């Protein structure tokens, strides 16, 4: 591996431009397996590889040891020095052909069976609970980085990368979708693991709707769309450390969530509302969501 990626991994195709750089599908010439190569160029100054990169990659390696079924495998890491100022770090992940976006697009006309949605959600929550209990937040959950294998196994991808890349964002023009962003991020308030729960809530709704729940065009527009669903939060829940005032938004009452997600059952709707809670401290945690009664009763998968 020390000889670099080019020898062991033979690129097959470019898969997605990704917000953070090009991702390649490649063949591992040793095992014949397909892998996904994600590279990031990091600036190396007089103090070597940046702390953030060292820590994040070490964290991904540590998570890998747990072999969690709902997290994409990190198979290898390599670092090649490009010049005195630049090192290319390549992360080699297992390759899964399909993401949740395509999975939903390919779903039969009648939509996914409620039991199938429950199964996907349970796996998604298991993966998240695992990441969160290891102090990792995803920060950029969306259908594109939730992988679904042909056996219907959910695998979270691209977690933790946000932090590796964020230091080097200036290098690439980044277009990040706002649709899965929670209010605290849109308001630029402080945030933690509840951000992922919000995104998962949006994805939960999308599994029924097969189209996104909240499609804002700017931060403010996205917030407006959110309040049309959950209503404008009370004054005392509005974060104090933000510049955008609550008065900026019209006073709206929450609408029944079934107006937006008619197919959802009662318990599902309860859970969804707990995930789409404005105040991150009141939002349900991944562990608690798994205990929710929605997951207790089984429904047919097809």
């Amino acid at each position: 591996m020390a000889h670099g990626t080019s020898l062991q991994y033979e690129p097959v195709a470019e898969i997605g431009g990704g917000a953070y750089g090009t991702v390649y599908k490649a063949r591992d010439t040793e095992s014949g397996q397909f892998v996904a190569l994600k590279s990031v160029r990091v600036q190396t100054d007089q103090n070597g590889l940046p702390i953030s990169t060292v820590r994040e990659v070490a964290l991904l390696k540590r998570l890998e040891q747990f072999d969690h079924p709902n997290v994409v495998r990190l198979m290898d890491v390599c670092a090649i020095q490009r010049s005195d100022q630049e090192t290319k770090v390549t992360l080699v992940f297992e390759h899964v052909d399909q993401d949740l976006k395509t999975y939903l697009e390919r779903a039969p006309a009648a939509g996914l069976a409620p039991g199938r949605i429950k199964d996907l959600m349970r796996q998604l929550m298991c993966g998240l609970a695992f990441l969160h209990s290891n102090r990792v937040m995803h920060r950029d959950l969306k259908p594109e980085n939730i992988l679904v294998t042909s056996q219907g196994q959910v695998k979270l991808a691209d977690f933790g990368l946000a932090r590796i890349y964020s230091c080097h964002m200036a290098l690439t023009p980044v277009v990040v979708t706002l649709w899965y962003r929670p209010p605290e991020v849109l308001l630029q308030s402080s945030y933690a693991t509840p951000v992922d729960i919000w995104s998962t809530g949006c994805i939960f709704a999308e599994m029924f709707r097969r189209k996104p729940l909240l499609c804002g065009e700017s931060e403010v527009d996205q917030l407006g769309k959110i309040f049309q669903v959950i209503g404008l939060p009370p004054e005392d829940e509005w974060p104090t450390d933000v510049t955008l005032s609550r008065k900026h938004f019209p006073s709206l009452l929450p609408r029944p969530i079934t107006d937006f997600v008619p197919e959802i059952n009662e318990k599902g709707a309860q859970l969804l509302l707990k995930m789409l809670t404005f105040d991150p401290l009141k939002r349900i945690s991944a562990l608690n969501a798994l205990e929710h009664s929605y997951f207790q009763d089984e429904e047919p998968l097809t």
Partner: protein
Amino acid sequence: MTRAGFCDSKPLLDLHKKADERRAPLRTWSNACGPKDRWQPVEVEESRMAPVKMEPERRWERRLSAQTSEGIIMGFNEDSLMHTAADGCVEESVFLYPHGLQGIHSLQALVPSLLRHEVETALEKLDLAWDRVFAWDMFLDMMRTQTRNSLPNADLPRHFTDSTRSVLVDWLIQVHEMMHFQEETLYLAVHLLNRSLRQIKVTTVNLQLLGMVCLFLAAKKEECLLPEVSGLCYLMDHTYTSHQLLRMERKILLGLKFDLSYCPPLHFLLLLASIARSSAKVVWMARYLLELSLLEGQCVVFLPVQLAGAALCMSRQVLQDPLTPEGEAAWCLASSVHVGSETALLRIMHILASAAGKAHNRETCATFIKFSSPETMHVSRHPGLKNTAALLGICT
């Protein structure tokens, strides 16, 4: 992926030892917490005490299916997570097996909720868990991941001897102290050094550089403030250029595959000491002994929790704190974490005893000096440590 399960790599139990010795903590626990008259020493067959062959554990299955699997060190079964701290299953499980504890390798069956409660409280108090909700999970992770942190054997590559290694470690201890780094950084640095020495081809000439870069990488992982590379080169008398240092950094990262995770024995020590309600002096003494273990090449084969347990155990014996029933009960609960590794603990205590006995007149005495200060309660100068023979006596 192959797992460095400790069962494959080294015997956990010395089968030549008397069965009594191996059972000691179990028995004391039972004496303290259970009804005394019920306890009957059981003749346990040798084979039964042998460690169970363990499969790589998949803890996550518990959420997908409620199946129980053989736990890693002392049989933490995952279904223990289903219990809350309040359900009184401690008594229950003891009474369920009135004929002794045959075949129970599982600590979970013995002290499920009590230990869990203590661990959660301790981790929270020590600020090692960011949220109590995750504390028990985190402890199970610590127990599990540490099995990757011991090495299969103490062999060093040719050209290197244990004494070269300890000279290097001693120097790292001095640099570490000078930099005012956290203690975790030192333990991580020495761990990275131990692994690098076995993973990377390095000449004797570059040994110091290797050690320094391990400390540098440990600092990148643990510290908020990072030393300048030029400063590190200065500390090495400019024997190496900063270019060489950075090249070594990449070499180590690749050699170790960026795997810098480590569960320092220090965390186990603080955890055990907190559960055992150890006095400040006992903790300082144990920290001293634990740091001495860094200098001993043979210690790399032991699990962090075993090193910590041995250091704490020996510290208690050296200092001979007055015994109270509460203190004994707390100690028994803490040492229940070691059920099954008593022999390893004894072996470590032997190593530590001889290290402590000669620490004051060795060339490598940075740790001795560090722990002779008033802030550390002068533990390294404690008269109880002077006599190696007597020390070895307490370990048998």
